[in-house]
């Protein structure tokens, strides 16, 4: 294939000049196209930057905490017995090792990560204490080792909290107050500042006390030489049951995998915005070529070759695409500043603690945006460029030839559209992959767009008599005008209907999801009161209710039943499994909706056997069903658990495994309880019990005590926050489409200046001309809205049954709110009417004689 430079090398400079001046004479058309592509690129770049920033922040965070460690010894939720470290060191098999205690604390509303280390073993792994300024170093080691609660924090946090070295202060863990003393501060280098900003350092024993893990370690970090790495079996043989040796990177990879589906979906939405933007370029340049068809014919008569015209239009597309891409990159960086906050909030809400303070602007991110914008523009302009190249010289004489040609293409386009729809259906069946799902989505959209001109033609044919009866000649003319300019109106209507369909599809999907989540919350949150420690978002797995609080709760006479749970993350193989231990009350059994198994078959197994129940996403992602066996790493080695049933659940898209609490305690030795649900006696006032609980347990531990109703509302708020990004992207897609339809309709109407001038010359008043233009654009908007509905519903079905299913593993009930459909039609209508305002005004103001001049 010839390079771009050689493609343009032989072009006539006067042809370019003519072309650029044409673009310059239609500045608004060009500006709207540039804006359209800029918005599309901006959304893609912003999402990519936000995702990349989150990923890098996570990587930096993991690298900082993991340091030079090549391997780690880990265990279940209770961690390792600290004696294991002593035994391993004494064995001489692990010369380079360091114990680590890790967890989260809160200072006010700020979450801080505590890293407890052995200062003597630490330097080969992380060497974080090297960031302590020399002038404050004296005595620091002694303070860390001997002073209870001694911690080191970043200088930035120290100043933000208004603390000074030596000052005692309060931290919170699992709702309990902890006393700490600031032993010193560190000033990391610029590239590590963001990661270490919220880090606290302490001696191992201090960290154990602050985190309530006395006698336990979170892990043991190792640096293994190549020789040692070959003897992993020998090292594993030293480890007790329930603990194992893993590569240091594996936990980070497993955690990153948790957010993969979220990132993929976000990227897909952004690509949809770009596709709409590229459609606009195609739209605009198609119009531009059509507008200049006679001119193209003239140039062919003068001896310009097809290749000359192809290069000309390609160059225009490249110019518009390049300008739009550059603007889009700038807008994208600005948008990313806001988007990264939303992404971070969602990750914190749903996955783990992550702090992203800065945008990671990487050359690759910028290059990706450039390639997508410019490359996509070139792709979008191929068809108009080919149309220009095929402009017959005879078109200089034949003004009606264009539409005749367009009408001849109706059937081939329609058949191609049907073929693409079939291809989309085949793609969906061909593979279970998410990528195929998205490709099928885009093929579906393309197929629909090819069918649009045929639908428009049919609707016009059958609407004309009706509009004639209702509105007389102007009504018939409005409809007839759409039919007569099908080569233009078809493209404009397709672009608008696709954009509106996207909002319908996403709207129905989000709406269905919301209803399903609400129903799930109502069935699963049937207890009256929920109690858990007041722990920072994303750190719940470390928190537990104190035995004193549990005792108080159990003694309440108003309580009829108590349900307890302990959610933990366990590393089983290469994945992190969300495991929840449950102690069910009699009332709890009814709250679960089983997709495989029935309550009569599931609960007896669950209560009496070595069995678990798994959520729908877990079953989907792992290809498991009721009756299968699931193996999990426990403190007593790898154990099989029978799957008693599969239940509907929207807690997490990685899926959840649930087992009865005694079984969990037996295998993992963890007797703590994270949350408690209270079922009250009939007739008991919930608010009175809430007040009583606050009174009784207020001093024991900082807790979240909520009526279930409040919790359901909070959960829905979290859900809405999660989809805030989707709504933002949806609005941007609508914005991009509106720009497109505005550009297209304005071009269309201004092209009809002569025709409208003839009507004025015949006696049409400016008001009647206004009415005619408005009626035509409104009719186009109405068609767009109506055509958007079936496509939107099909898109919704693909999003719900394919994309969501394959990405997250859950199913949902489809709910089609009438308002979403009505809104879609109104959106299309209003967009079109707004787009017609300027041309209508301009046409009504133009003197007929001026418009009737031949050139």
């Amino acid at each position, binding site marked *: 294939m010839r390079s771009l430079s050689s493609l343009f090398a032989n072009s006539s400079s006067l042809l370019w000049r003519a072309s650029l001046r044409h673009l310059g004479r239609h500045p608004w058309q060009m500006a709207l196209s540039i804006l359209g592509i800029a918005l599309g690129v901006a959304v893609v770049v912003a999402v990519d930057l936000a995702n990349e920033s989150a990923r890098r922040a996570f990587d930096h965070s993991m690298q900082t905490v993991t340091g030079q460690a090549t391997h780690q010894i880990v265990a279940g939720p209770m961690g390792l017995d600290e004696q294991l470290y002593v035994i391993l060191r004494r064995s001489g098999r692990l010369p380079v090792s360091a114990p680590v205690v890790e967890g989260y604390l809160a200072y006010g509303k700020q979450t801080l990560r505590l890293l407890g280390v052995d200062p003597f073993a630490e330097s080969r792994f992380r060497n974080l204490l090297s960031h302590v300024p020399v002038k404050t170093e004296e005595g620091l080691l002694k303070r860390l080792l001997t002073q209870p609660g001694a911690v080191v924090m970043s200088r930035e946090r120290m100043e933000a909290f208004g603390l000074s070295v030596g000052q005692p202060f309060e931290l919170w863990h699992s709702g309990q107050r902890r006393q700490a003393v600031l032993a010193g501060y560190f000033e990391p280098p610029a590239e590590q500042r963001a990661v270490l900003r919220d880090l606290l350092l302490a001696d191992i024993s201090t960290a154990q006390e602050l985190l309530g893990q006395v006698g336990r370690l979170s892990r043991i970090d190792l640096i293994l030489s190549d020789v040692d790495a070959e003897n992993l079996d020998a090292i594993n043989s030293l480890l007790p049951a329930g603990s194992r040796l893993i590569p240091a990177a594996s936990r980070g990879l497993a955690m990153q995998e948790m957010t993969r589906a979220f990132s993929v979906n976000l990227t897909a939405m952004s690509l949809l915005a770009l596709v709409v933007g590229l459609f606009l370029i195609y739209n605009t340049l198609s119009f531009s070529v059509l507008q200049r068809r006679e*001119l193209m014919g003239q140039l062919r008569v003068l*001896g310009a070759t097809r290749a000359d015209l192809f290069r000309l239009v390609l160059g225009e597309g490249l110019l518009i695409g390049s300008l739009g891409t550059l603007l889009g990159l700038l807008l994208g960086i600005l948008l990313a500043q806001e988007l990264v906050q939303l992404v971070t909030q969602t990750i914190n809400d749903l996955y783990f603690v992550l702090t992203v303070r800065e945008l990671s602007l990487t050359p690759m991110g910028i290059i990706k945006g450039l390639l997508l914008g410019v490359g996509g523009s070139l792709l979008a302009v191929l068809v108009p460029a080919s149309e220009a190249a095929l402009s017959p010289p005879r078109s200089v004489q034949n003004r009606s030839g264009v539409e005749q040609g367009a009408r001849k293409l109706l059937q081939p386009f329609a058949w191609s559209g049907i073929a693409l729809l079939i291809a989309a259906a085949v793609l969906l069946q061909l593979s279970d992959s998410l990528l195929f799902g998205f490709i099928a989505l885009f093929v579906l959209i393309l197929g629909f767009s090819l069918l649009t001109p045929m639908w428009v033609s049919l609707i016009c044919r059958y609407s004309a008599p009706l509009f004639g009866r209702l509105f007389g000649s102007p009504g018939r003319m409005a409809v007839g005008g759409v039919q007569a300019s099908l080569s233009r109106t078809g493209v404009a209507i397709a672009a608008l209907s696709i954009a509106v369909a996207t909002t319908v599809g996403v709207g129905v999907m989000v709406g269905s999801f919301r209803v399903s989540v609400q129903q799930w919350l109502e069935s699963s949150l049937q207890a009256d009161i929920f109690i858990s420690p007041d722990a920072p978002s994303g750190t719940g797995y470390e928190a537990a209710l104190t035995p004193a609080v549990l005792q108080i709760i159990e003694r309440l006479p108003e309580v009829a039943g108590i349900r307890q749970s302990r959610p933990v993350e366990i590393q089983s193989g290469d994945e992190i499994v969300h495991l929840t231990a449950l102690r069910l009350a009699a009332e709890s059994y009814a709250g679960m909706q089983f997709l495989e198994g029935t309550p009569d078959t599931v609960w007896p197994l669950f209560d009496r056997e070595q069995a678990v129940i798994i959520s729908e996403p877990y079953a989907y992602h792992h290809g498991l069903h009721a009756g299968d066996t699931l193996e999990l790493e426990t403190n007593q080695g790898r154990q099989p658990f029978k799957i008693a049933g599969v239940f509907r659940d929207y807690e997490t898209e990685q899926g959840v495994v649930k087992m009865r609490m005694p079984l969990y305690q037996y295998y993992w030795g963890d007797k703590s309880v994270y949350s408690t649900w209270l079922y009250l006696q009939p007739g008991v006032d919930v608010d009175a019990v809430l007040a009583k609980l606050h009174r009784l347990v207020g001093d024991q531990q900082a807790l979240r005590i909520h009526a279930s109703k409040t919790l359901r509302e909070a959960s829905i708020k979290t859900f809405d926050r999660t989809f805030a990004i989707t709504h933002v992207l949806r609005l941007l897609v609508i914005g991009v489409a509106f720009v497109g339809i505005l550009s297209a309709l304005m071009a269309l109407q201004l092209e009809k200046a002569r025709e409208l001038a003839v009507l004025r010359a015949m006696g049409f008043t400016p008001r009647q001309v206004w009415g005619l233009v408005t009626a035509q654009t409104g009719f186009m908007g109405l068609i767009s809205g109506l055509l958007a509905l079936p496509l939107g519903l099909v898109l919704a079905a693909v999003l719900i049954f394919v994309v969501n299913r394959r990405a997250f593993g859950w199913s949902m009930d489809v709910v089609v709110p009438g308002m979403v459909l009505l809104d879609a039609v109104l959106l299309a209508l209003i967009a079109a009417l707004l787009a017609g305002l300027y041309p209508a005004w301009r046409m009504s103001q133009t003197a007929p004689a001026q418009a009737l001049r031949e050139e």
Partner: protein
Amino acid sequence: MENDCSNAFIRLNSLTRIYLQGEREQRVLDGVCGEIQRGETVALLGRSGCGKSTLLNLIGGIDQPDGGDIFINGTCINQMDEHGRTLFRRRHIGFIYQFFNLIPTLTVMENLLLPLELNGYDLAEGRCRCMTLLEQVGLSQREESYPDQLSGGEQQRVAVARALVHRPAVVLADEPTGNLDLESGQQVLDLLDQLVRDEQCTLIMVTHSQAVAARADRVFNLRQGQFVASEDVVW
């Protein structure tokens, strides 16, 4: 490629052109034969829709016949591929249309320069040639004007200059005065006459006006897809 052995500069050999209108065939040209000598001025006369413009398009290579051949200076142009015809047209043919068809986003000078640039001429030298022609058509003061700033007669004069700027062998004019008033039309025809003879071009002019046709060396009458003798034409 077939070569023509006759002496005629332009030879039309049983030219046929058929248009489809729905299911119906319309034979616009039905075995047209004719010869035109180099430097001759020929008028094509006939009623509206008789195929005059079609014949012009075929000779200009912007349309293809359904039967027969067209030879220009011995070269059979209808056997060339599309690219070949374009290059031939670029070099050897000049067009003048009823509705001027100037490039609206190029100035008068640039409109004249365009055929030269397409033919690979040096534009600095080309400017001299263009100025000479502009002076001849009386528009040397308007070189920087755009077409929409000119009157109809002025535009057509520019079109005439553009058609001749690259010294084509053949000029094809389709109702060159059809959109002009009498005086402007006469002016344009006088210019065309003079320039064509100065450049020794062969001019084929479509017209429905007897008065315009009278200026030509010969008149071809087109009726029912065939050339007929002048005395057989009934107006």
